């Protein structure tokens, strides 16, 4: 057998080129294109051409668009409440189902169902369940003598209804990650704590929780980024209403882009959105890593 010839530069480039081109076409070009569009006004529905407006779209977003700030406020509050709730409930469920209890495997599977269903399906299912005339939730409550509740029509109540659905859907994600983490915890530490006379709470507080913290940081980060992109539940259950009380940032961006076809402004919103998500994830990472 002869000695293998070194591969020439041209060959290397030749092999790399298809994937690079694919990456450029699918990843880089849309990014650059959308960045460029964000400096234009383009009402695409009427077949007009993009007009360069400089930073005007960004100025409008920050200083003259109350709907942006409304959706930003709603999204931030939403993310905070659902992530904290899902983490707490996921931790509790993982703790309980890590113990040797009856039907443990059955419950482990059942709790994963909501996460396995497609989010848009979940949204339409809840919309039907909460329908004021035909929804089963209203009928059950009515049979118990509880008067009509404006689940989807009260601007103060509806955001919380969305949050409850989100918590129901995504707590299993936290549960799954934490359960896996629980099962990797070293038994020796607990034996030592038991010898030292630590209570169950103390064992959790000083052993379990610190050991889980790295995985918690990762789960919170993943879930926060995902929750920030809230779209399907809003689209399927409330359409952003009543009024704009449940209009998330991504739903607002979709509305501007694909209902008004104001594509320049929608691209600016997308870039602002990207900036916010990057900032929040960096903030969370640093903050939580410090804790770790």
């Amino acid at each position, binding site marked *: 057998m002869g000695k293998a010839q070194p591969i020439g530069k041209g060959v290397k480039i030749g092999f790399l080129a298809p994937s690079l081109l694919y990456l450029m076409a699918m990843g880089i070009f849309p990014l650059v294109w959308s960045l460029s569009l964000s400096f234009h006004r383009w009402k695409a*529905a*009427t*077949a007009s051409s993009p007009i360069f407006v400089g930073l005007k779209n960004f100025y409008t977003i920050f200083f003259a668009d109350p709907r942006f700030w409304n959706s930003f406020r709603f999204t931030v509050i939403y993310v905070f409440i659902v992530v904290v709730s899902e983490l707490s409930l996921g931790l509790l469920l993982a703790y309980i189902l890590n113990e040797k209890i009856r039907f443990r495997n059955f419950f482990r599977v059942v709790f994963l169902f909501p996460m396995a269903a497609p989010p848009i399906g979940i949204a339409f299912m809840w919309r039907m369940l909460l329908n004021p*005339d035909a929804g089963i939730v209203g009928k059950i409550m009515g049979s118990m003598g509880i008067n009509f509740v404006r689940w989807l*029509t009260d601007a103060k109540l509806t955001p919380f209804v969305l949050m409850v659905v989100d918590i129901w859907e995504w707590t299993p994600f936290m549960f799954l990650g934490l359960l896996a983490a629980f099962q990797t915890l070293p038994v020796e530490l607990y034996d030592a704590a038991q010898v030292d006379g630590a209570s169950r709470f103390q064992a959790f507080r000083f052993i379990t929780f610190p050991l889980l913290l790295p995985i918690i940081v990762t789960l919170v980060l993943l879930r926060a980024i995902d929750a920030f992109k809230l779209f399907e539940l809003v689209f399927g259950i409330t359409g952003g*209403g*009543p009024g*704009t009380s449940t209009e998330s940032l991504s739903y607002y961006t979709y509305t501007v882009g694909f209902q008004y076809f104001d594509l320049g402004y929608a691209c600016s919103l997308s870039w602002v959105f990207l900036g916010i998500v990057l900032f929040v994830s960096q903030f969370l990472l640093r903050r939580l890593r410090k804790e770790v």
Partner: protein
Amino acid sequence: MRRFFWILMIVLVLFSVTSSAAEKTWESQQGEFTGNTVTVLITDPHSAVVEAWKPEWEVLTGAKVEMVVVPYASLYDKMITDFITGTGAYDLICWPSTWAGDVMGGGWVIALDDMIKEYGYPNWDDVTPAIKTVVSWANKIYALPYDGDCHMLYYRKDALENPEYMAKFKEKYGYEYSIPPKSWEEIRDIAEFFTGWDWDNDGENEYGIAFIAQRKTQAMWSYLDFAMQYAAQPGVAPFFDPETMKPLVNNPGWVKAMEMIQTMTQFAPPGLLSYGYSELRQAFVSGNSAIALDWGDIGILEQSPEKYGSKVKGLLGYGPLPGANKTYDFKKKQWIEAYNRVNFLNFGGWVFSISKFSKNQLAAYKFATYFTAPERSILDVCGIHGYTGANPWRFSHFENIDKWIEGGWGKESVTKYLQTIQAILSDPKAVTDLRIPGAAEYYDYLDLHLAQVLSGSATPEDACNNIYREWVRITETQGKEKQLNLYRESLGLPPK
């Protein structure tokens, strides 16, 4: 031999003439589109029409018809995205004509004048003038008519025409209401009177009035029913000042209309704010309210207790939109203290257009003309094909009473129903809907701020001022001069 040659030539010429004449007709021919696929973008319940006619048209022409059924809230973005990207995924598109400014004005669909000239159209003279207007843009026809749309008033005869209830009403309010109710002021009192008690003795309490109120499901047209009476006059559209393009949506007429619709929510079923058009229709025919506002569709659902759970068959009365006891004249900037009633062509009707990117334009044209021909379209509007969302739009639809009776109607009911719709569609002073570019966006903001008023999170005045601001912004973004001229054109005025 020579004679034979000439005879053969004459036969060939005649054959080619007759065969080409046979091709140049709107009527579909045996096997003429074998191997072609016509893709239709459509919403529910209109898909029922395509579903009804596609099997026999496929057998006749050899073509295939594929439907892409999307919810109303997604129709605009699916359609415009296809146009902008030039994909041509849809050959035939069923869309509401109120988007004419974007769809026809944007040049995304083909003008049909040449095709109509070349292939003909199934009885153009049979189409009512109002519908001919909505399928046109800048003197060209861009869509095939399919639906006659206008809001009308439905009321429960067993409630409003009950002598005992009428007497009690007179005792409480000091006057007798008209049948059908004549004004929003009357409706307000009637709605209040019939709210919260079991006036039809079915063991459940009923409510006064129901209308579409859910965001993104056409609720703004409920509000426009009020606004037309308080802010418009017959033949005078109330949207913009045609001299300056300044929106009129925050003048006292529009604010009064907003206050009135907000008041009505007190006399409506508790789930009102979740009523889209489907929910409203189902709720009303299940018997929960005395009055409803809708297009002609409730009438169709009324006739089918088995299919749509109607408990009100034969119990509904029909009337035009109620007027108002005063109206705001935006030109003189003052109230006119006199009764005013305006017919309004809400929505304008669903139409079928052919995408300019379609590769099967002729097949699409022939399929659409096939099912919109007089003898077929009557089956879609009269109830024989059930609830299709299509309402009468041809003169022949209003004349062919027997088909309606076959569709489940009583003679008296259908006569009144058709008279009501025909009177609105043939009113030369009926106000046509907003059709300029960006209509979908103008209306989305109207819908948004209306939702805030109905849910109690904004006052009528603030909401109208917010709509005004948004409409100014949209007009500027679209180009004020262009919008002004297009708006003037839609009113039949010369350009500025």
